[in-house]
């Protein structure tokens, strides 16, 4: 029957330095891999929507036209799946957590105007091309239909 078996350890603790961190007097230290929050280099984003689709929480939303990428940081579980999936690797997981707040606000990143412009231009072109392609396809279809009709007649 031993009593106070912990006395040695307790006394040793008493005379040694506490292990307590200095936070918040000193900033927190993070490990390199720490999954803190998601950063985006928005201009690289191609708005493919891969991240929004793969996010298990549905935290992300994008607006391709406006060139925005929106995240609700109070909803992100920092799983890093979006980072893994992003084809352009424009998402990164960085250390440091989102500070607590009284409101759950979403953050929206908007592409810089130049990029937006370029994109809009590109889109226009694309649209044009698409329209052309569509026209062509339609014409083709119509032709085919006509052909078919003809064949039927036969």
């Amino acid at each position, binding site marked *: 029957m031993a*009593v*106070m*078996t*912990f*006395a040695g350890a*307790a*006394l040793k*603790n*008493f005379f*040694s330095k*506490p*292990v*307590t961190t200095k936070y918040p007097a000193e900033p927190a230290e993070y490990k390199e891999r720490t999954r803190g929050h998601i950063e985006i280099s928005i201009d690289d984003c191609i708005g493919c929507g891969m991240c929004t689709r793969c996010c298990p929480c549905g935290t992300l939303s994008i607006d391709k036209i406006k060139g925005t990428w929106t995240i609700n940081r109070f909803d992100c579980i920092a799983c890093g799946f979006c980072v893994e999936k992003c084809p352009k690797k424009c998402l990164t997981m960085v250390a440091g957590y989102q500070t607590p707040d009284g409101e759950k606000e979403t953050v929206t990143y908007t592409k810089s105007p130049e990029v937006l412009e370029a994109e809009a231009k590109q889109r226009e072109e694309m649209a044009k091309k698409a329209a052309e392609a569509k026209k062509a396809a339609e014409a083709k279809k119509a032709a085919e239909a006509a052909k078919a009709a003809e064949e039927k007649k036969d």
Partner: protein
Amino acid sequence: MISGKLISAICYVLFAPLIGGLIDGIGRKISARMQRRVGPPLLQPFYDLGKLLHKDPIHVAPSQNFFMMSYLFFIVMTGGMMFLGMDILMCMFVLSTAVMFLYFAAVVTGSHYSSIGASRELLQMVAYEPCVLLTCIAFYMVRGSFETAEIIKGDISPIVYLPGVFVAFIFILTIKMRKSPFDISTSHHPNQEIVKGITSEIGSRNFGIYTLAEWYETVFLLGMVALFIINSNPWSILAAVVVIALVYFLEILIDNTSARVKSDVMIKVSWAVTLVAAGFNILVLIYFLG
């Protein structure tokens, strides 16, 4: 003489909370360091008390407020009587009356954690009461009086005659100060199987009152420890302070190195210690010192 007593009693009423709070703060700091952490600031107990008294007062049953006030009053009275140099056995009886009020404040709510805590408080009382009474009796045997004013007047410190009783009293002190391993009716640490036990339903202002009462009680109990040391030599007061400091440190060490035992073990062990240490001491006193 009377006025001296009066002054000490008034000092007790006025300063015991300060000393008690400070002691509490020191205790928490020491505890923290034993746990290898920084711990709260020294004045934390006062911050806590201030906050408690500033919150919106709450109760579960209206009579709680009055029971808690009575509890505080009788605790203060206990110490006051002791510092007035009055009968120490009576002090103890008043102390039990005070505990009774705390008990009532807990059971009046009918809620389970506080009721269980209250029942356990009674068991604690069963555990420590014999030793407390024996301590008083031992003082009486040594000094021929129950009055604290007389007890402090001898030439030799009572502890010389009463080492066994002293040990038993220190043991019992663990129960009274609600330290592990005997913090079974309520505990300073939050994680009790009965939550906050007897104080479960006591919040905001009432809890402030409770805290205050505890400080008074601490000072009173440490005063009891001092009684073992103090004799007619003024230097003995210094010795008493040192002993109190040691005892308090020991209590904290015990608190930090033991698990909370169950009530049956508590009663068994404390009665055994009472019987063996205090009982034997008194026996020796009776039959060998006449």
